[in-house]
């Protein structure tokens, strides 16, 4: 176990392993995305109320659900950085922040685009929307702090502290926001209940899209992390060898 | 590089007294991809004064901050009385007095108030001791002037007064002679000599030739002579 752990901490090992995984991940994602998108865009029946706009769901829901996973992931990586000083954990923490920001932004954007035809407004101070917005701010804070601190080592630990404090806060924020607005606008709440009576034609492609976007997330995280590994280890022997090999 | 057991073995440096208090073993540090020092080992015993030399940017300040624990981007071991400092932070800090480039003097407070707080962080002392210390560093008339109204050298003196009220064994001073006038320099040298006489030890960076009655070890961080 400990061996595995220390091995996992080795950027080189991670780089090589992920290099072997990537082609498979690419393939799987391409397949799922192709199936999911064609199904969602061409074959899913029009909703009797929402019309074609229902198709935005196939982007919105996967993106939104992944964005929720990013902050906890960052906090866990941060905790590992602080406790075991594992470099790889910090690289992951660093790379997941912008991805989380993008996915949160995308969820906000797709939600807004969807909301326009459904609610007649791009934005409402609904509980879920608001907590997403605050999460967006939290990501911005972490990224701003990372870019403001110049020493990578100090930045790693400072961001880890912030991510952990933020992660303790995320549930509190979510709870307080939800509880804050249910009195005023219970109608605009989104929930799985709305989906349950729906037939499999609707939720099967959704599941496919969720898996596809999850893979997209994993791939982008891997690519970013690999890039980060190369940058940080650029003076180590194996990276120099790698560069020499790729150039010849 | 150095034997890490018996300090009485013949290859210990001549001035190292009985027991090496601080021991630095194969220290490595790089900043901005420039190696500042690698495999640096030395020890400071009680009653030993070590002057750290090196040209600008050679890593003197960095070394001192690493030893104090203010900077932890290094590899290697630092031992205090034979135990790694990381395992006994509090004990080590209780025997340490550090004065850095930034003197640690609040500009709103008076010298007296500044010293009172500094002391309370380590060992509280009574006001008489503080007044004595301030008088000895030449601030007799300035005890109750806000430090922002003092000159650069006077502020430096406030921070040096800490040396007089602290029971610390190890002094780590980063360019303490900066902005001191000739009297101040002489007084600080006298303080250093007293401390060494009493069995304390000190690690000091300065570009100036120390004029003290005791032996001064030199640690030079310059790999090559600087071309300037």
């Amino acid at each position, binding site marked *: 176990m400990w061996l595995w752990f220390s091995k996992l901490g080795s950027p080189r090992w991670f780089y090589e392993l992920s290099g072997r995984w990537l082609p498979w991940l690419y393939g799987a994602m391409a397949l799922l995305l192709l199936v999911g998108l064609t199904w969602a865009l061409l074959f899913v029946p029009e909703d009797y109320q929402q019309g074609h706009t229902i198709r935005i769901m196939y982007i919105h829901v996967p993106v939104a659900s992944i964005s929720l996973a990013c902050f906890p992931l960052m906090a866990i990586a941060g905790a590992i950085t602080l406790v075991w000083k594992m470099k790889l954990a910090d690289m992951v923490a660093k790379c997941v922040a912008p991805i989380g920001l993008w996915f949160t932004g995308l969820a906000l954007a797709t939600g807004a685009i969807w909301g326009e035809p459904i609610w007649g407004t791009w934005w409402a101070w609904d509980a879920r929307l608001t907590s997403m917005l605050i999460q967006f701010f939290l990501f911005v*804070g972490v990224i701003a702090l990372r870019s403001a601190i110049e020493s990578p*080592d100090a930045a790693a630990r400072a961001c880890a502290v912030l991510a952990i404090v933020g992660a303790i806060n995320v549930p509190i924020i979510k709870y307080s926001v939800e509880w804050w607005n249910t009195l005023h606008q219970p109608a605009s709440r989104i929930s799985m209940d709305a989906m349950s009576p729906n037939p499999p034609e609707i939720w099967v492609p959704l599941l496919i899209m969720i898996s596809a976007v999850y893979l997209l997330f994993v791939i982008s995280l891997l690519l970013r992390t690999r890039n980060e590994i190369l940058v940080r280890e650029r003076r180590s022997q194996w990276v120099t060898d790698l560069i020499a090999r790729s150039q010849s | 590089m150095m034997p890490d057991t018996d300090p009485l073995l013949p290859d210990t440096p001549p001035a190292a007294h009985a027991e090496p208090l601080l021991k630095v073993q194969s220290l490595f540090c790089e900043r901005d991809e420039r190696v500042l020092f690698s495999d640096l080992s030395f020890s400071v015993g009680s009653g030993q004064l070590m002057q750290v030399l090196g040209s600008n940017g050679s890593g003197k300040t960095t070394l001192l901050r690493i030893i104090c624990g203010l900077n932890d981007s290094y590899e290697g071991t630092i031992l205090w009385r034979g135990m790694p400092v990381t395992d006994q932070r509090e004990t080590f800090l209780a025997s340490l007095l550090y004065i850095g480039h930034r003197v640690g003097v609040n500009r709103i*407070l008076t010298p007296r108030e500044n010293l009172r707080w500094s002391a309370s*962080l380590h060992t509280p002392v009574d006001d008489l001791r503080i007044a004595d210390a301030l008088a000895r560093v030449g601030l007799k008339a300035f005890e109750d002037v806000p430090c922002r109204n003092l000159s650069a050298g006077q502020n430096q003196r406030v921070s040096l007064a800490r040396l007089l009220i602290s029971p610390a064994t190890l002094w780590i001073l980063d360019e303490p002679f900066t902005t001191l006038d000739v009297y101040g320099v002489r007084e600080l040298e006298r303080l250093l000599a007293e401390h060494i006489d009493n069995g304390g030890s000190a690690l000091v960076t300065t570009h100036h030739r120390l004029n003290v009655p005791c032996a001064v070890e030199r640690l030079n961080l310059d790999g090559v002579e600087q071309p300037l």
Partner: protein
Amino acid sequence: MSAGTVPEVSTWGAFVATLRRDLLVAFKRRNDLLNPIMFFLIVVTLFPLGVSPDPLELAGISAGVVWVSALLASMLSLDNLYRADYEDGSLEQLLLSPQPLFFLVLAKNIAHWLISGLPVVVLSPLLAYMLYLPEGAYWTLVLTLLIGTPVLSLFGSIGVALTVGLGSRGLILAVIVLPLTMPVLIIGAKAVTDVMFGLPVGSHFALLGAMLAVALSIAPLASAAALRISVN
């Protein structure tokens, strides 16, 4: 100055000395005492000016405005918390104290709250009156602020500790701290509005209390860790 003896140390003494020192600095610069109040007052007056002087409209937003202003006042005064110490080197001395950093940081946070949080709490009824807050909500407002502002100081302290070594000021601190403190704002302001509508507010207070307890136990730790990182 005898070498070799570890001096007897006193955590409580260091705690009190640090608390007293920070209060002393604030009292010597009387501005530090006056400014949070003045800022609070000015920001609150911005609203009748910018929004509308209509009593009814103001009454509706009064609780929120007072709370938002308290939040901003607390955040603005945070900058003083470690900055001067960082710049003059006192922070290094603090970190090199053999005393547990947790308590020294806590002492500084308490001093900060006494200087900038408490006056705001005391002044809040006056401002609430100026904004036509309904009679019955005064005590709730004061109480929520009394419990909430220490949380703001404690959380804010983490943000300042993380950013104290950076050249740029104010804004990055706000960007980090404000999102973290939004729950306090939501619950505090909600409690006051709920009282205005005659709703029960016990659970709000329980929540605020829980937040204060969590903040008291965790925030100084996080601040201490952050300070070590910043000084590095």
